[in-house]
């Protein structure tokens, strides 16, 4: 059976609308009858990624592939890239501005959370070119 795919453009200009793609995916997964735990993990991981794209990369794209046994979330941006992935994976490490922190994000939990809630997180990144995250949640 081929995967169902969904594509979203994530607007990098508007912080207040960040997360809309994740909300849409959550609703679709719910309609498709996936277990609540799977839906929750997908939603949180994708939401963190979406927020990151808005905060750091001026938006990007989100592609979600839904198969009966796994959900793959691919987030791609043309932002600044991540110079030190190992450092970025450390809980509490953040390059966010004070302004972002006053909006409730930038605690340095984004990437660690994505790893925590998914079975695999692959990071392809190049400084000055962009970042592609591929996350898989097994059903």
């Amino acid at each position, binding site marked *: 059976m081929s995967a169902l795919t969904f594509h979203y453009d994530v607007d990098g200009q508007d912080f207040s609308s960040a*997360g809309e793609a994740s909300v849409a995916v959550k609703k679709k997964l719910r309609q498709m009858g996936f277990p609540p735990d799977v839906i929750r993990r997908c939603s949180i991981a994708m939401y963190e990624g979406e927020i990151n794209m808005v905060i750091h990369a001026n938006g990007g794209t989100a592609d979600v592939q839904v198969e009966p046994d796994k959900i793959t979330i691919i987030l791609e941006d043309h932002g600044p890239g991540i110079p030190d992935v190992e450092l970025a994976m450390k809980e509490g490490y953040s390059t966010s501005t004070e302004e972002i922190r006053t909006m*409730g994000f930038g605690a340095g939990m984004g990437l660690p959370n994505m790893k925590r809630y998914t079975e695999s997180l692959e990071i392809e990144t190049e400084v000055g070119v962009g970042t592609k995250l591929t996350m898989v949640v097994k059903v």
Partner: protein
Amino acid sequence: MKIREIAQLLDAQVLCCEEELDTEVSDAFCCDMMSDVLAFATNQSVLITGLLNPQVVRTAMMLDMHCIVFVCGKLPTPEIVSLASANDIVTMVTEHHTFSAAGRLYETGLLHGE
């Protein structure tokens, strides 16, 4: 505990989803950093916060929460309330500060999650 009792204990003004006030909740999480809520909340269904923006509602949605309590009398914008309303999340505002709001609820049996 019913959400209705939370509103009473906190002398809170309910802003939307009054029809959901009889929903039972047992655990709450209290934080202004949504990053931390996403990282550390487990099965809590009430979010107590002093942060005002639409991401508070989206964070609550991602975690399947049923109720948001805004503290310190901070009134959310109509945009925030309508987002919560569209997603059946009871939203209320209390004059209590975070510590006092959490303390009152804890004292009467609301827990902190697993």
